[in-house]
């Protein structure tokens, strides 16, 4: 049984209220930090913990914090990214709706570390009910003296606001989020300047994922070194995975990083195996943006080592035989899944969500979708398969923000690992176009 650092009390009755949360040790990190630590000491603990950003890129949080520019007399901001809209990823929603005070506590302790006196939680617009839960928690924290002026008599002031987005996936990209928070159209910014130097209202800003911030209280309470003992290598601590697809027990699991993928899928403690007694075909391990892997490569690396749920192990083999941990959206597909149809479906999403600012993504995402649509519906040609790879390559690396890559990678990976299935859609076009038709051949690796 793995340790639960974030979700230990998630099922406690009334844990969403200040009182019960406090009884279970809540807000200790605020007391400890504000009363016994300097802001820099808090940053130091987070550095020691090895915590890596849980929003997708896996950038070390402590390092990000230490990059924050601190010009004299200029306010700084902490913004929590709660826009969670990636297909397959639904962990932050759970964390916020069940444990709102954990996020509020994390925001206070983190804001203190960064010297921010105003902080924001930017929440996905569709999650209005979660916004209400958070607002209630924030009101309770104000009432208890954990927010507002002179918190716990320490002289530290903090105001915390929740701001709902308008329902655009792109507003999860940190600079689009900042634009949106400023009341503008959510177009990602050109970088540099980076948010650490010019973020919200052109002031130094840190943007962190909900789960990253929720881990801070644990780190401050137990110490960074303790936290770093959990996990493997540079993948420290625990991570939430939202498991979905053809699993016996889909859901949200907090695991210690380093758990073998095989155990995660098949053991009864976690996903309990593939549903209906079927065979696993493929997995998208970190949300829809990361490369898909066939069963053979998700369970074992190309070198035959067991694949682990860690940043390093999941990306072992690069994009040739590996993938990424991403944001922890774990999508399992059984043998009845049509990879072409699934890729088309992802592609539709990115086409719909591109902000349209830069030409490769604006035009390329639509192009990919249309070609995939054609293949799936029996109107494809053999050349279309290489065309997909080529268009994906024309997008990748040439755009303002990583949405371009997020659109390109899944397509490139699907062709890489399931090319025969794409070809079958051309050679057996009529058959493939029938609803529910699935290629039964053997997929080639690499």
């Amino acid at each position, binding site marked *: 049984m793995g340790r639960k650092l974030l979700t230990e009390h998630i099922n406690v009755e009334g844990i969403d209220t200040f009182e019960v949360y406090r009884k279970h040790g809540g807000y200790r990190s605020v007391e400890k930090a504000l009363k016994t630590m300097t802001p820099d000491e808090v940053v130091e603990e987070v550095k020691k913990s090895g915590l890596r950003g849980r929003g997708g890129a896996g950038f070390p949080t402590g390092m990000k914090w230490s990059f924050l520019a601190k010009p004299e007399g200029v306010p700084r901001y902490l913004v929590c990214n709660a826009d969670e809209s990636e297909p397959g990823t639904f962990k932050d929603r759970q964390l916020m709706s069940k444990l709102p005070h954990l996020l509020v506590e994390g925001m206070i302790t983190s804001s203190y570390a960064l010297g921010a006196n105003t902080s924001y939680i930017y929440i996905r617009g569709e999650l209005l009910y979660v916004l209400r839960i958070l607002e209630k928690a924030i009101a309770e924290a104000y009432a208890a003296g954990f927010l507002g002026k002179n918190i716990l008599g320490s002289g530290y002031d903090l105001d915390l606001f929740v701001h709902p987005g308008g329902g*655009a996936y*792109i507003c999860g990209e940190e600079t689009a989020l900042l634009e949106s928070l400023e009341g503008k*159209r959510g177009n990602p910014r*050109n970088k*540099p300047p980076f948010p650490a130097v010019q973020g919200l209202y052109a002031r130094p800003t840190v943007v962190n994922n909900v789960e990253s911030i929720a881990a801070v209280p644990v780190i401050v309470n137990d110490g960074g070194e303790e936290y770093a003992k959990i996990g493997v290598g540079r993948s420290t601590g625990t991570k939430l995975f939202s498991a979905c697809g053809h699993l016996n027990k889909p859901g949200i699991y907090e695991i210690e990083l380093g758990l073998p993928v095989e155990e995660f899928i098949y053991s009864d403690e976690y996903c309990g195996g593939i549903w209906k007694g079927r065979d696993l075909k493929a997995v998208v391990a970190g949300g829809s943006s990361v490369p898909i892997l066939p069963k053979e490569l998700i369970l074992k690396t190309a070198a035959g080592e067991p694949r682990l749920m860690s940043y390093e192990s999941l990306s072992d083999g690069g994009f040739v035989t590996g993938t990424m941990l991403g944001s922890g959206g774990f999508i399992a597909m059984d043998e009845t899944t049509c990879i072409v149809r699934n890729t088309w479906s992802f592609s539709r999403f990115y*086409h*719909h*969500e*591109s*902000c*349209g*600012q*830069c*030409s*490769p993504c*604006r*035009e*390329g*995402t*639509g*192009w990919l979708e*249309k*070609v995939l649509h*054609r293949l799936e519906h029996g109107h494809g040609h053999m050349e279309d398969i290489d*065309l997909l790879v*080529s268009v994906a390559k*024309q997008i990748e*690396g*040439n*755009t*303002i923000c990583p949405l371009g890559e997020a659109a390109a990678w899944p397509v490139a990976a699907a062709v890489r690992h399931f090319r025969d299935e794409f070809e079958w859609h051309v050679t057996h076009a009529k058959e493939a176009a029938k609803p529910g038709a699935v290629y039964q051949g053997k997929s080639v690796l690499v």
Partner: protein
Amino acid sequence: MAKITFDGIEVEVPDGTTILNAARQIGGSIVPPAMCYYTPLKGSGGKCRACLVRVAAGSTKDPRPMPKLVASCVTPVQDGMVVENTTSEQVLDVRKGIVEMLLINHPLDCPVCDQAGECDLQNFAFEHGVSTTRYQEERRTFEKIDIGPLIQLHMTRCILCYRCVYTADQIAKGDRVHGVLGRGDAAEIGTYIENIIDNDFSGNVIDVCPVGALTDKTFRFKQRVWFTKPVNAHRDCPKCAGNVTLWYKGQDVLRVTGRKDQYGEVKEWICNECRFDKKETADWTIEGPAHIDRSSVISANHYELPVLNQSVIADLPESTQRDLEKNPPLKLG
């Protein structure tokens, strides 16, 4: 000051200068093309990706190459930076891809487009693209919209460079009436017509538009631009500096525009009175013929033999040259 090496040529520029502007100081065929950046417009650039270059060395302090190509129009130089544009196969290849992307949803009906002959996209595609397309799907189209009696918007030709948006915001103080609606390839220039036509400087959106998406209704289809003669002129104008280019056909002034530099940028905005109302020679003090630079076909006054900057041609990758030989540019018009 920062010293950088651009395509093997050294240049020293003030700190904070963008790579593109450093290249423009060198000038000539090594200057990256720019479809969205517009010097006088704050916030412009970074969108079209036409100007992507390779940074082979970031700076003297950190000489590592940058992992991705960067948009030269928004990336500041660093001392000791080494940049590759025409000397990098990768850059030229990616640029070809950008042309392809910009064209997949473009109508390609230059023969009936008012911008033909002075179109940045036409020039860009001609210099950097390939002449065939792999796109088989239906192209996106929009209805034409009148922005008041003087300006027409045809989104079908728009490349979403956002220049008109910044112009409306910063020059015509349009109070965000000219923003973008929608997302992705469904995005369009939105406008509350009434609000923008009242502004004396709204006509400038025509000049900044790199393509035939925003056009002068008083000029539309009167004449192909390469049959008109540009002449610089000025007048005492109470609203603007009054420095313009008049476009003549015989004795008639067919249209009035701002004066563009060699990169197609207007440095002095002109007011709507100068642009739309002053179409008599008597309104103006004539300075002399306007020099039209670059590869524009206007300079040749002849559309069937497009004049290309020879040095640019020489720098094209072999594959593009071969493409050009195999498929000579269409004879339009």
